[in-house]
């Protein structure tokens, strides 16, 4: 036994002796071997999935957008719909049938020909409930898709058919003027049947099974470490972007990416909160800070059926007494954009003139008309619920509490919750009463349907404000079907006026992105919708 102890001691000493010598000789490699350009970006650590048919468009979207292309795509500067894998498409006069003509000679990243039948397979796969998609509803406007997706129909019943190798015909349930935006969504990307049949869920893990059709293709995914792509030689179009793109995967990219950026390991960093102020005040970093618009709104959500918030005057008074400009510029140090109206600017239908604005005198008057002069008679225990883990949410809640107390003389109780507990609480608000909570929405595509119909229609009631207005609903129903863009915009503008006037939401700010970008990087741009980086537009001048 003594020998054994001695032996293990010897092993220990050997290991100990090796450690410094090994680490002493190695040094961080700078990779000066090839002249090829590399773009180094940050990403959240766990792309839940890189399967376009499953993804909800959160972490992992940037990688998928760089590796795949749908029939059409959204131009990341103008927002226009441009032909992608389809060279053209025709829409029948009733707006129901879309015929897509694919480009000739399309190939997958492994060189295999890409056919219209690949789109048919992919669209049906994403809609199939067994695929467990987080974003299955994208293709529901297709005839028979919602039935199939909710287990009441079949794949054959879904009207998306490849009529030959280059023609893909889709029939809709009813006219949907926004349908081309859905066609450009990641859910509608083509995926390869043979690799999915072979590798099942694991097809996204290795480069022999991850086959795509976009500007870049898969090289390597080191779980929780990095994700690497290279130019796809089989892509139909040009790609003058960097030869490779490497994403470093962080658990908390807002906390870690600025450190890696400052150490020269990244070309871009994500900035939030106090880091924005720090970067703005730093001699070097201040020149590398960029602020981008992000089409989204952060709101205080009101339960319009729960007293005293069931009184429209009270809701209007609270909205008028909310100094959103001060919240963004002072409390949040200009980390976002000042509130304009309920729906974010740029969405057709949104009009800044429809907003109630900030006017404490008017707010006071409305409060006394509602029966709460100077806050007298205001009920106790009116609760304001928010994510206690979010520094920004806590600051907002405290600021609001102060503003309403000063302007209207009312007291509210702050109720912080753990993130996931808040999610569960929020879901249960479908039936349970509440007063206020903080939440937000950002465009998935720039169309009023993605806001008014999806969130605010009384049938959707996505945030459980329980606000109902028959005229509002009717305007939205008409807007959903109207093919004339000008008329359609007018319908939504009328609806926008109504929802702003009735104030089931109070906007605290509109979303933004802050980046640090190295001076040798050109063309790195976040479009206001989704806003992921398209590497083919970026130039690395180093």
């Amino acid at each position, binding site marked *: 036994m003594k020998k054994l102890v001695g032996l293990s001691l010897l092993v220990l000493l050997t290991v100990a002796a090796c450690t410094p010598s090994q680490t002493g000789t190695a040094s961080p490699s700078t990779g000066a071997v090839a002249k090829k350009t590399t773009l180094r970006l940050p990403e959240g650590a766990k792309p839940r999935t890189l399967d376009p048919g499953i993804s909800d468009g959160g972490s992992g979207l940037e990688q998928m957008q760089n590796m795949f292309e749908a029939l059409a795509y959204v131009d990341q500067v103008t927002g226009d719909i441009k032909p992608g894998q389809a060279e053209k498409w025709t829409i029948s006069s009733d707006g129901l049938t879309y015929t897509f003509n694919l480009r000739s000679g399309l190939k997958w990243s492994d060189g295999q020909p890409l056919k219209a039948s690949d789109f048919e397979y992919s669209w049906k796969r994403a809609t199939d409930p067994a695929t467990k998609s987080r974003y299955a509803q994208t293709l529901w406007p297709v005839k028979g898709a919602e039935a199939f997706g909710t287990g009441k129909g079949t794949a054959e019943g879904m009207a998306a058919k490849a009529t030959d190798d280059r023609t893909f015909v889709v029939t809709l349930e009813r006219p949907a003027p926004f349908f081309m935006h859905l066609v450009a969504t990641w859910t509608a990307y083509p995926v390869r049947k043979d690799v999915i049949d072979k590798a099942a869920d694991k097809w996204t893990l290795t480069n022999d099974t991850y086959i795509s059709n976009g500007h870049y293709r898969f090289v390597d995914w*080191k779980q929780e470490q990095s994700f690497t792509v290279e130019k796809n030689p089989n892509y139909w179009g040009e790609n003058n972007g960097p030869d490779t793109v490497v994403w470093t995967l962080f658990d908390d990219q807002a906390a870690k990416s600025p450190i890696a950026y400052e150490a020269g390991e990244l070309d871009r960093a994500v900035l939030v909160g106090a880091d924005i102020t720090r970067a703005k005040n730093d001699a070097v970093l201040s020149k590398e800070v960029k602020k981008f618009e992000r089409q989204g709104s952060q709101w205080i959500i009101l339960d319009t059926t729960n007293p005293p918030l069931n009184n429209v005057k009270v809701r209007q008074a609270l909205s008028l007494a909310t100094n959103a400009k001060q919240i963004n510029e002072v409390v949040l140090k200009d980390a976002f954009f000042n509130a304009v109206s309920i729906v974010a600017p740029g969405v057709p239908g949104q009009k800044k003139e429809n907003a109630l604005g900030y006017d404490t005198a008017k707010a006071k008057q409305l409060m006394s008309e509602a029966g709460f002069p100077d806050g007298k008679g205001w009920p106790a225990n009116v609760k304001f619920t928010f994510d206690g883990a979010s520094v920004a949410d806590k600051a907002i809640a405290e600021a609001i509490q102060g503003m309403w107390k000063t302007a209207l003389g009312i007291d509210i109780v702050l109720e912080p919750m753990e993130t996931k507990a*808040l999610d569960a609480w929020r879901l249960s608000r479908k039936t349970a009463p509440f007063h206020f909570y903080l939440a937000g929405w950002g465009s998935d595509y720039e169309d009023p349907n993605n806001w008014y119909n999806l969130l605010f229609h009384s049938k959707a009631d996505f945030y459980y404000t329980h606000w109902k207005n028959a005229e509002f609903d009717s305007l939205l129903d008409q807007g959903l079907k109207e093919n004339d863009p000008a008329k359609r915009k007018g319908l939504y503008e009328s609806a926008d006026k109504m929802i702003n006037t009735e104030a089931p939401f109070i906007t605290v700010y509109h979303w933004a992105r802050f980046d640090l970008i190295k001076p040798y990087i050109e063309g790195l741009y976040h479009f206001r919708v989704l806003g992921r980086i398209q590497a083919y537009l970026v130039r690395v001048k180093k």
Partner: protein
Amino acid sequence: MTIYVLRRVLWMIPSLFIVFTLTFLVVHATPGGPWDDSEKPLLEEVRENLNRQYHLNDPLPKQYADYLLNVLHGDFGPSYRSTQRSVSDIIGATLPVSVQLGVASLLFALLVGIPLGAVAAVKHNTWIDYLSSLVTVTGISTPPFVRVSLLIVFFSLVLGWLPTGGWEGIWDVRAIIPVIAIGSGPAAILARYTRSSLLEVSGQDYIRTARAKGVGETAITAFHAMKNALIPVVTIAGVTLANVITGAFFVERIYGIPGIARQFIDSVTGRDYPLLLGTVLIFALLIMVVNLLTDLSYGYLDPRIRYR
């Protein structure tokens, strides 16, 4: 001896079963579900479909029985958050990383802590002792997430010697910061125990005898005093494994190491029930095994201790 080990090993089975059951009940009693609902909630129909596909709508006793049966067959099920990897895949990929990091950190703790404590004891009440006290008290009182952050700032940002994060195996330079960050806490604890234990032993008769016989001071410390002084230290070394694990929770996350401790944190905050149960069972097993090894090591250090 063999019977003792066998009995201890058999006792692990009901212990693991209790850990499994308690964890299962606690995670299902915690509010919130595994789907991403924070920034932009999922559509209700989509969430319902996910609950149905993953059998989360089944009655809890049925979920428990189904899951237990799977685990007994070695299948921890799918991870809810990572659609392409099962829990077994994730544990298989991350456990070896954490084990390497943990072993290296423990070695660091032993190789730094025990000599540091021994030197402080031999030179007690001199400036060396005071310096050692300063170092060890600092090590004990700073939590691992502070240590790793300070090390990153110093070595990566100020000096620019080491990368700010990542993992390329235990022999890569990226391992230096995490090993020091995790190992320095236990090293400090071991140093304190070694010092006090060695001081206590040094006062005993047999040491005085050795000294009277003319044995050199170094030999006395190294061969005579050290062996007896190490018994309490070994006890603590077993306990410090818990420190290494808890240290790894923070350090793996902050330094971006693809280890199992980071998975544990993510599975708690993400309500990834199968991954959480899988990692909890691994940690429980690990701690039980190390406790057993610690108990057995007493027998070698002190022949008076016998196991029945």
